[in-house]
């Protein structure tokens, strides 16, 4: 079994190469380099999958390090990006996801030994669903975020009769970007809901109440409301274009705030690093 330190170095190298190719491919508008970036990201994903299958995280229920959690998120991001790339035939998603995964691996390395002790009362498979569904949701929101940012940049230029040039010229059409964002957010909402309900269930079993006023809970409920508004308007009111793109960016920004600031800097049940 490869140790977490060695596997982190190997995956870090894969994602570094993938990111370098992604950056040079995007700036230099070179398709071959972009495809190269995708290949390295997929290789990294497969390697990490093999490690997971072989029991890399065999102590998942009894406790996992903060670093391992971040690496798991990277795995989910690449998984969603690969599926989206195949389904939507847009390599943009994998190309942009690789640098995000590299950042996650960089952050993860100092925290490989920092264990998160899960109370024995919630060491159930529900816990896996809680993390898994929220990670899938966050990965999908990242895809929606990338598409929405790209959409707004290109749409603004078209609307104001400016030339779409440079890096933007290689991105998909605004209709396709809106479609990617739409599919990602519509799928993210049910996963987020499942993840949240799981959280409330544990909270209820642990503290006797589903909502305890924890900052993470409040922020998560607010994100859920925003996501619900987006989901409803996308489905029922056929929202397209700028409005949903802006709301998607807000939701993802809030999710990042919840994931980074609340988990690390605030006094919360989820503030593992503190």
């Amino acid at each position, binding site marked *: 079994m490869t140790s977490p330190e060695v596997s982190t170095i190997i995956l870090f190298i894969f994602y570094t190469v993938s990111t370098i190719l992604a950056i040079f491919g995007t700036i230099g508008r070179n398709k071959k380099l972009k495809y190269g970036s995708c290949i390295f990201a997929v290789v990294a994903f497969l390697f990490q999958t093999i490690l997971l299958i072989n029991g890399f995280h065999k102590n998942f229920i009894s406790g996992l390090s903060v670093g391992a959690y971040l690496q798991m998120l990277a795995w989910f991001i690449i998984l969603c990006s690969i599926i989206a790339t195949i389904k939507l035939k847009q390599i943009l998603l994998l190309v942009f996801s690789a640098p995000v995964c590299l950042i996650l691996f960089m952050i993860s390395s100092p925290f490989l030994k920092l264990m998160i002790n899960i109370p024995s009362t919630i060491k159930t498979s529900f816990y896996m669903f809680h993390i898994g569904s929220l990670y899938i949701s966050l990965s999908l929101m990242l895809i929606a975020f990338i598409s929405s940012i790209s959409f707004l940049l290109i749409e603004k230029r078209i*609307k104001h009769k400016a030339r*779409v040039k440079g890096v933007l010229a290689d991105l998909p059409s605004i209709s396709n970007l809106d479609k990617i964002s739409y599919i990602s957010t519509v799928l993210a909402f049910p996963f987020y809901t499942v993840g949240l309900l799981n959280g409330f269930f544990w909270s209820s079993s642990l503290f006797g109440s589903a909502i305890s006023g924890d900052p993470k809970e409040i922020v998560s409920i607010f994100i859920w409301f925003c996501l619900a508004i987006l989901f409803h308007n996308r489905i029922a009111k056929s929202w*397209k274009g700028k409005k949903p793109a802006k709301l998607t960016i807000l939701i993802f920004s809030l999710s990042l705030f919840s994931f980074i600031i609340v988990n690390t800097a605030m006094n919360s049940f989820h503030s593992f690093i503190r």
Partner: protein
Amino acid sequence: MENEIFLIGLNHRTAELHIREQFSLSSYCDSDTWPIKNDQVIYESFILSTCNRVEILAIGNKDVENLIIDSWASAKGSTSSELRPYVYIYKGIDAIKHLFSVASSLDSMVLGEPQILGQLKKAYRKAVELQKTGSILNRLLHKAFSVAKRVRTETSIASSAVSISYAAVELAKRIFGEMHSHSALLIGAGEMAELAALHLLQNGIQKIYVANRTFSKGRELALAFNGIAVPFEKMTSYLGESDIIISSTGSQEPIIHAKDIESILSIRKNRPMFFIDIAVPRDIDPDVNTFDNVYLYDIDDLKEVIEENMNNRQEEATKAEKIVDEEVAFFNDWLRNLELQPTILSLIQRTERIAHEELDHTLKHLPNLDESQKEALERMMIALTHKLNHSPLMFLKGSHMRKNKNNAERISLIRQVFDLDRQ
């Protein structure tokens, strides 16, 4: 006798249209009318005659340009003094560079236009058919085609639209991506609008509606585009079904108003709409552009897009010129190397002949050698000549690497030292 490449021509910069017409050689490209006779002075020739340029490329002895100009003028029933003020003459490396620039569309009226390469290929096919080209022009023209391809692949000189209709289609692609699942509505029947519709069709648009004040004309147009003619009065009801709307009527008032758009967007479930207003005065209320998911471009906007694209092509031309310079240097190297070939061949043949003579002489004194020993001896002699030839050959090629300053002198020196001119 030293061969030189000559390029004599006139183009849209040096000659007005009536002069280009007067000296056009487009109907002088068969074996009877070919104006340049391949003989002892001119070995190879090639003619390119398009609406914007007439160019004659030839391989010959020094100073054949007068002969070419005379032949050209006389073929057109004129005199060389009449033709001469409009022509440019390029020789050697300058001729190569000019040809590569023409093939790469760097010398065209519309920078980066794709037609010139096709015209050049067609002219080359004709010259080959008439056996007017030889080893140098064949190589030169094939190289010109590959340079043009390289320029197109490595720069974006031809990637952006420089006509109104192409610019409109490019914008539509930027909004919708693939055209296959989209439909367009053509209002009116202006030439530019028709061209835009044609380009949309070529890009795979699924359906085209045509609305014209004169229904019969609209039906005619719809037939041409394999589309559907719709009554002009009911045109607004088809807006909901159309993603791209191209309007070019002669109306003095707008025919599509901003107030209509909200309800249309609701019918379309906010799917984007792209309005292209080519009419003057404008057919579409400019406020239409204020709606989300609606994009309106009028004739001035499209002209601005084209202008910007032209500037971009100009920037890309600088990159393309570097590629041309690089390829000119490669071709020139090959050409200069070609000059050395007879001397190289003579040197190798002479030394090998001496080696064989000496070998035969030696073998007469060694009658007891078996076949394998004889072969070994022969191999040794050949290897020896190769090794001895290495330095003089490097000397010859080295002179060519030093920009060919004393190429003729060095060839002469080697020929004298090794006595290569003795019969």
